[in-house]
């Protein structure tokens, strides 16, 4: 039973590390602010969930478990809020997404996507 729990904890940590690295590659290689934000925002919540669940499986003391659950809940509430505020601020300040920007350069009558 113990080995099963240890194995699933290691699996969760491994998935978390992989998603973390993919988010890092995404923030370096994507061409546009909004696509970068997609990479970071999507992977961040799942990374935090996976790594914290892996830690929860490791240590069944009650107080530590409660603290881990608090960190997980806080991350799940805070990350989407920050992403939303960031996207709203960028859009209001006039930063266009890449596709829309290209349409404008071509001089075509760009259809407003939102």
């Amino acid at each position, binding site marked *: 039973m113990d080995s099963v729990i240890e194995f699933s904890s290691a699996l969760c940590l491994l998935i978390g*590390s992989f998603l973390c690295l993919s988010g890092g590659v995404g923030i370096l290689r994507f061409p546009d602010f909004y696509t970068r934000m997609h990479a970071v925002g999507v992977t961040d919540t799942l990374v935090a969930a996976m790594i914290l669940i892996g830690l929860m499986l490791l240590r069944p003391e009650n107080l530590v478990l409660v603290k881990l659950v608090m*960190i997980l809940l806080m991350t799940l509430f805070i990350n989407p809020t920050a992403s939303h505020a960031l996207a709203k601020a960028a859009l209001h300040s006039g930063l266009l997404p890449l596709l829309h920007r290209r349409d404008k350069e071509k001089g075509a009558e760009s259809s407003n996507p939102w």
Partner: protein
Amino acid sequence: MLIAATLAILVVMGMAIIRGVMGPTLYDRILAVNMFGTKTVLLISLLGFVMGRPEFLDIAIVYALINFVSVIGVLHYSEYSELKSGPDRIEQPRKDS
């Protein structure tokens, strides 16, 4: 496995710093700082488990709150003040790609 996850998070923090230094717009930098803060929370809790001192989780909680407040504060400042007419105001970064 704990140490492997710690190393992965450290590598990703380095990537976030690279994007923050070379990000073409202001919002790229804010995004990189936000990602760095989230990864810091995870790094602190992982390091607590690696060293066998789970009391580090308290610091991680405080760090999550500070990160959120700082990101929202900087966004508010850049949206309603003169900061957005600073040096890298939306220069519509690159023409290619």
